[in-house]
């Protein structure tokens, strides 16, 4: 029987490269103007999954994402790096989902895959930084979770041993399978796409899955299934305080340091 691994991934706007046109005049986010990337920690999760695959006989890695059809790009990317398969949950009925509705949709999709041994995902996505979807998928599937994983120590058919990061140290935990693991940015970088694999799957269409095929309660999907509502969005406009602008001349710096010393700040 083959060993089944699922990787949860997300295509995200590249929030590190936000340009001036990133916001619409009404304060909403202009997603079209933002470049997208494979969420960085999800790539680390993919690498950990591929390392498990390397160590096991007959293991498969399936990448699951939710998003617009364009998110197929990261499925192709993942497959060129070594994943076996993947699909996009894409449907207008998924739109507007918060983490609860997202984790419900993802967990229903995973249920359709049958028995799963391991699920990996990034700890958090750079567009929300919530770190909630991983633990919520684990709860919905009623399996254990290991968050903040940074290193795979060992794995076999029955268990996995992981080093995880705490605020002030690390912890080595062993979990019986199945378990869901979320990987931090300290995980190993993902291997590069393989040209041969890239070519082989260049023409393949990535599977799109809609809400009808995951046996879902439609009331628990998308905006409808999301308990959190955005009440207000504010563009961040800085409140100007009285600021003194100095040129870095000897005289100006001398005066500043003397002032700070006399005010007992330095």
């Amino acid at each position, binding site marked *: 029987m083959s060993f089944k691994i699922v990787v949860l991934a997300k295509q995200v706007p590249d929030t590190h490269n936000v340009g001036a046109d990133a916001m619409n005049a009404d304060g909403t986010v202009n997603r079209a103007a933002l470049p997208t990337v494979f969420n960085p920690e999800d790539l680390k999760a993919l690498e950990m999954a591929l390392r498990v695959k390397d160590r096991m006989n007959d293991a498969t890695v399936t990448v699951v994402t939710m998003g617009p059809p364009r998110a197929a790009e990261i499925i192709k990317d993942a497959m060129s790096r070594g994943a076996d398969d993947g699909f996009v949950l894409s449907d207008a009925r998924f739109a507007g989902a918060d983490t609860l509705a997202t984790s419900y949709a993802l967990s229903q999709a995973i249920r359709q895959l049958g028995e799963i041994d391991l699920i990996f995902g990034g700890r958090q996505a750079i567009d929300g930084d919530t770190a*909630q979807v991983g633990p919520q998928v684990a709860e*919905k599937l009623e399996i254990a979770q290991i968050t903040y994983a940074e290193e795979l120590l060992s794995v076999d058919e029955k268990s996995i041993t992981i080093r995880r990061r705490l605020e002030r140290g690390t912890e080595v935990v062993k979990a*019986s399978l199945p378990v869901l693991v979320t990987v931090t940015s300290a995980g190993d970088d993902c291997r590069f796409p393989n040209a041969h694999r890239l070519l082989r799957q260049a023409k393949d269409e990535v599977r799109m899955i809609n809400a009808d095929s995951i046996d879902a309660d439609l009331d628990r999907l998308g905006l409808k299934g999301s308990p959190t509502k955005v009440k207000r*969005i504010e563009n961040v406009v800085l409140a100007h305080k009285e*600021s003194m602008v100095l*040129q870095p001349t000897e005289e100006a710096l*001398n005066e500043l340091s003397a002032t700070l010393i006399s005010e007992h700040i330095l």
Partner: protein
Amino acid sequence: MNNVLVYCELSEKNEIADISLELCTKGRQLASQLGCKLQAAVIGNAVKKAGESLYPYGVDEVFLADDSRLSPYRTLPHFDVLSRLIEDQQPQIVLFGASSVGRDLAPRIASYLRCGLTADCTSLEIGSHQDVKNNKTYDNILLQMRPAFGGNIIATIVCPETRPQMATVREGVMKKEVFDNNHKGTIIPLTVSESLDKADKAVEILSREIEEQKIDIKGAQIIVAGGYGMGCKENFALLHEFAHLIGGSVGATRAAVDAGFCEGERQIGQTGVTVRPKLYIACGISGAVQHRAGMEQSAKIISINTDPEAPINAIADYTIIGDVMTVIPKFMACYKKNLK
């Protein structure tokens, strides 16, 4: 009555963690405003003393789960105890630290209860919300503010229909303050042993390595912080030299940490630590909102930047336009001269 509940974390010394005391302080304000009780959940091993230490922070009821299997923290045993407690008590608000514990536990609880959870809130208030579409008004609900979308916007999140309303808050964001040294609460022991048997088995801790905290910038009075504009790791050495001279600590932005310029423990901002020094010197920092969230309460801010338009300059008391690598040595020379 539906109360406000704080999930309390324990330090390595088995005391209530600072983040939880900060949440109790906030929770006290919210509970007083709502006219309800402040409750705390303390889940661990031999934690009666820790539980009682919460009274001065205004906690009225401390739910105590005491069992050797509850320490150190593991997800499923704590999930088991806390989810039962919340189902039983039906609090209207539950607060967690946005720590490796809180961010592990809170989402699992929210999923189980099918309620909303807002991560990394920078502000929590009681207010009202009008749902225009359904023509409904919700009074006395929790308004949860958090930076979103890479920090380019501040979102106010509400959970009008589901209870409890849950939020996580990072350490240092809220102030820890004694409410009343004479405030007396009660301990309510929870029975846990039976239900824990099943939850105990899934994940086993083989070993833990807790490092002595070498870097602690939280309490520093002066912070010299570097951003991506420092250019490279080597240039950070100048910040250390500068900080050493003026008796400060070195901090950094997420961009600088991600670029490998310095250790992650030095990261200041929404996903790092929050600081309130008397002097904050921002070197080559543009000032993304997540970074500012972690330092804008500094008493005095100096920005050194080649870009006169850098957002950080807007909250700086002094802006020095220039390259940090030339400005800092000059400033250090002036400082030494003026000290004499």
